[in-house]
């Protein structure tokens, strides 16, 4: 329990620094960056304490929960709760470690920005919300922090708000995330209406006891996944992530590579017990397809951060694929390894961009500092960056002895065994392996184009410098974590070859029971044995290693031949399949599709609402003043009479009645007397009828 309180302190510390920073940031020395970074390192230390304790205990079922009343209505209550278990402990370390290093890095990267203190305020706010997602035991709490994560992402993406592209990207990120959150919220509603609780434990009990089952459960699972799709940038809601690269690079590293996007995966990990077969398959397919699909886009991009962004999308797809195919631990494991190497890649790119920016600025060249076509040969100028970058590239490609190798391999093995059991899902391993190959190819393309060859803008060459210590230290720090040894160290041994072993797998146990009971398995006639679930990479492991090595190797080789030895011409390939190339280059036109359909529809619809409001409803009340407006609208469609009929409303009728009445008021007394007489007649006739 003490550990849990410690965790809560970890959570609240960034909030405190956020408040300090927002109100007093500008008045503190060094604009308060030391407060934020210091607090984060304290957090890291605390997280390591917790982790150490957990490792020491070595209890897979360790779980500490703190519940408290939040909203109580007499009839219905909404308690909140925190949880500390092994997954949380691991995540805490990942988040605080990545954050701490990136915060440190930011001191160098953001130097001199006019909103320097605000930047750190936002960073702490992000850390606060992200840690909240990790710590909450309660879906409601998770959702709150989940949205706050989105908010901080919005603030940080749009940090340079004077750039239109940045503010656009921020908005896009937030709204796209909201679409996902919409799903998640509906999922919560389903769960709550069936079980009356948001607590994960309570939901688990409810699912196990069958209070929530069948289609509703499937729907809930898929809806939660929808939230994850938004946050983890899965197809089709992946569009925001590449745009989010408009933010400062450390932000991209922190949020859009390492932590926030992983929240989606984390959520699925948390609710895995309520996934029905159908939902898992949906998750697997979306994940697999995203992995493959994003990789193809990354192939042709030239913006260094965009390539990484698509690669992130792709890697997140992997994690989803893992969760969907039952490789629960592997997915989480990949989350962790990916966090480090992707953060490293981003920070490395940041370092490059920083250097490029200053170099180009020095010679007044307005070329894009992020375009890899403008780079080349940087390995000589920026040694630390190069080497750390290479390590990360190897890791992401899944070269042996890197962290990426073991985690990715576990996933691929998982898909293979899954497909082995259900041959009809052969596409899943295909997606996985194809993406692995393409990843290797484009990552090495990136490395080759950036660090090898000659620098493209020769006059600026002299101005390229390695970044300062404050930026390179985090790079090295992350690079260290790309080695397999950190992960495979088991309880008492270090395993070199077997990815399925090590402390991680001992700590992270898949939930004992899932919603997938045998009777509900719709996609296979085969009846499962309870103990076979979830499918762990086992028998297919060796095939997987072999196959992935082969494909990754091929990717690297092709990349080498294309960009270093130039025996393969990329242009020729592009010219051979122009449509394919253009499709990839333009991100398969997803953005354009959304613009043409959803967004346009919303705008047209809202304009219609306004029109309806101004013209029809007001028109009915106001009457004649609007006739002309309506007339122009309907001109040529209806004739005058119809329109008059529509818009002459109550007020008009009143006016007409008044006018009509006054027509009798001719001023001639004899007309009045006729009216008098006719009035009498009318009354009598009226009464006689």
């Amino acid at each position, binding site marked *: 329990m003490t550990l849990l309180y410690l965790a809560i302190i970890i959570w609240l510390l960034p909030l405190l620094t956020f408040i300090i920073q927002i109100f007093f940031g500008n008045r503190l020395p060094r604009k308060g960056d030391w407060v934020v970074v210091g607090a984060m390192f304290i957090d890291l230390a605390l997280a390591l304490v917790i982790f150490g304790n957990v490792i020491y205990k070595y209890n897979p079922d360790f779980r500490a929960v703190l519940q408290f009343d939040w909203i109580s209505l007499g009839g219905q209550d909404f308690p909140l709760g925190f949880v500390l278990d092994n997954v949380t402990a691991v995540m805490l370390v990942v988040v605080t470690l990545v954050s701490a290093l990136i915060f440190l890095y930011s001191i160098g990267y953001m130097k001199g920005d006019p909103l320097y203190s605000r930047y750190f305020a936002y960073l702490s706010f992000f850390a606060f919300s992200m840690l909240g997602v990790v710590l909450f035991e309660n879906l409601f709490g998770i959702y709150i922090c989940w949205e706050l994560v989105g908010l901080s992402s919005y603030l940080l993406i749009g940090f340079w708000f004077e750039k239109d592209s940045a503010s656009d990207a921020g908005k896009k990120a937030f709204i796209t995330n909201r679409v996902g959150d919409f799903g998640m919220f509906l999922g919560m509603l389903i769960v709550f209406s069936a079980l009356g609780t948001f607590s994960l434990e309570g939901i688990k009990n409810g699912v196990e006891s069958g209070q929530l089952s069948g289609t509703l459960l499937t729907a809930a699972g898929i809806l939660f996944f929808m939230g994850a799709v938004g946050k983890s940038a899965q197809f089709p809601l992946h569009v925001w992530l590449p745009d989010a690269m408009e933010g400062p690079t450390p932000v991209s590293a922190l949020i859009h590579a390492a932590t926030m996007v992983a929240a989606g995966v984390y959520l699925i990990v948390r609710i895995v017990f309520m996934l029905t077969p159908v939902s898992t398959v949906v998750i697997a397919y979306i994940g697999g397809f995203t992995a493959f699909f994003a990789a193809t886009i990354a192939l042709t991009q030239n913006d260094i951060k965009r390539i990484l962004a698509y690669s992130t999308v792709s890697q997140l797809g992997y994690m989803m694929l893992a969760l969907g195919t039952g490789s629960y631990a592997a997915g989480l494991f990949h989350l962790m390894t990916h966090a480090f190497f992707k953060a490293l890649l981003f920070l490395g790119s940041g370092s490059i961009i920083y250097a490029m920016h200053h170099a180009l600025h020095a010679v007044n060249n307005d070329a894009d500092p992020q375009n890899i076509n403008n780079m080349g040969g940087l390995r000589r100028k920026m040694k630390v960056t190069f080497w750390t970058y290479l390590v990360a590239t190897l890791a992401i490609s899944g070269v042996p002895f890197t962290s990426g190798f073991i985690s990715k391999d576990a996933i691929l093995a998982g898909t293979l065994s899954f497909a082995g059991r259900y041959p009809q899902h052969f596409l899943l391993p295909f997606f996985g392996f194809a993406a692995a190959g393409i990843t290797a190819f484009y990552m090495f393309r990136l490395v080759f184009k950036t660090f090898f060859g000659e620098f493209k803008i020769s006059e600026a060459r002299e101005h390229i410098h390695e970044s300062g210590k404050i930026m390179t230290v985090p790079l090295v720090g992350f690079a260290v974590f790309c080695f397999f040894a950190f992960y495979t160290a088991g309880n008492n041994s270090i395993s070199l070859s077997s990815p399925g072993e090590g402390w991680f797998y001992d700590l992270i146990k898949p939930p004992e029971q899932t919603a997938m009971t045998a009777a509900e398995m719709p996609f296979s006639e085969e009846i499962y044995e309870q103990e076979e679930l979830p499918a762990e990479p086992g028998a297919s492991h060796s095939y997987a290693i072999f196959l992935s090595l082969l494909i990754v190797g091929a990717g690297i080789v092709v990349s080498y031949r294309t960009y270093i030895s130039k025996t393969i011409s990329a242009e020729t390939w592009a010219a051979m399949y122009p449509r394919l190339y253009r499709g990839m280059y333009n991100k398969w036109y997803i953005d354009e599709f959304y613009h043409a359909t959803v967004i346009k529809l919303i705008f047209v619809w809202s304009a219609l609402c306004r029109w309806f409001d101004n013209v029809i409803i007001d028109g009915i009340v106001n009457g004649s003043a609007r006739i002309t407006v309506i007339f122009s609208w309907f001109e040529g469609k209806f004739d005058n009479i119809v329109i008059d009929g529509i818009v002459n409303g109550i007020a008009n009728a*009143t*006016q007409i*009645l*008044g006018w009509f*009445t006054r027509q009798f008021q001719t001023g001639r*007394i004899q007309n*009045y007397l006729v*009216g008098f007489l006719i009035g*009498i007649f*009318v009354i009598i006739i009226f009464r006689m009828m």
Partner: protein
Amino acid sequence: MVDADNIIKDLQFFYPEIVLTVTILFVIIAELIPSIKKKLIIPFLSLAGLLLSIFFSVRLFDVQERFLFSNMIIVDHLGVFFRIFFALASVIIVLLSIPTFKRAGEYYALLLTATLGMYLMASSTHIIMIALSLEIVGITCYVLAGYRRSERRSSEAALKYMLYGAVSTGVMLYGFSFLYGMSGEVNIYKIRDILMLEPIDNLLLLVSVIFILAGIGYKIAMVPFHFWCPDVYEGAPTPVTTFFSVGPKVAGIALLIRFVFAGISVQVSETVEQWISIGDIDLQFMLAVLSAITMTLGNTAALAQRNLKRLLAYSCIAHAGYILMGFTMFTGAGINAVLFYVIVYLFMNFGAFIVVDGIALRLKSENIDKYRGLASRAPYLCFALTVFLISLTGIPPTAGFIGKVLLFAAVIDSKLYWLAVVGAVNVVVSLYYYFRIIKAMYLEKPISADELPLAIPRIHIFLTTLLLIPTIYFGLFWSPLREWTTFSLNFMLSID
């Protein structure tokens, strides 16, 4: 047979009228003496007469209901109520007229005669008394309408009023002749008693009743007998219009109450305050429809008016419609609401007209455009007018609101929901034009730069205040008024 003793005995219940008659004579004599005429004595003489008459009227409240002078008129609470009402109205009009008609003896004589006529209208039970009293009020009003002889509009108003009135009276008399023919009786109480027993031809009854309604209705400005109203109100001098808007109109209502409830319908039982009309002419529904049409027509026609007097004329038509709502269910509550409403109507309508008169004395115009930005030039009068208009609209916390509530309450109590809804919609419509005046005063910029405060005659300020206080007070504490009307609602004895 009637003997002299009876007549002499009855005279003591006739003091209010006698006082008034004597005052009229004094005024006429005073008018003839030049030295008196110069000294503003006549108005105060009239006031004294009216107040004395009120005094005697109040004393009549203690008297047991009885018929006087061989069933010609009746002394009952209702009649006394209206006597006091008319005398009060006339007091206000006399005061109001002082700046306009300083030394016009005929004017006050005619006004007092009209008041006497209204007294009689409220208490007549005999056909010929009804006709005579109507005619007294009519003739004096025709002349009053044309009191600015040399003004074209004024004399035109007189002509129209006169012709319309003459025809209406003729039609009414023709209608009465049929009632007489059916029953052989000349007292409306008796006519009712006879017709209750005899089988009657509905069409005949209907036509005669409508002919009679035409005579009464034109005084009330009830549709379709309202046509004269806007023209006459616009053309007549403003104090006279003010008088018309309440005096003869309410006299018509008094007569209508008498005619409808004592003449052509009977109370279900002694204890239940519910009447049913004789014959099978469903007068209630007819009145309901007429009421709805009257208020709708008045309100909608008022929407486009630019002349305030004309606008208020249409508003008077609309208010006639509201008041008629009280007749539609033939219940005590309805009549009670009517009585309440006419008092409230006296305050607010007089108030509005007096402000308009006061402003017109200075601006020489009643056009609404002239009222732009007036709030800064005559803040008190504009405030008062706003209150009166709010009250006329029927928005709390004014007496007008309570008046409407009681009317609506009576209607809803009898489950005539459609009429209530029509009434409600009409209130909304009326809001529009009443607030156009308020809008002009407060919301619009003045047309010209002469921002001098208006010098309003003191008597107008005084009268405005006098009317303002009850308009608000009775909006919050209306129990006494209601108790008075309930007390006055005693007119259902039948003839011996």
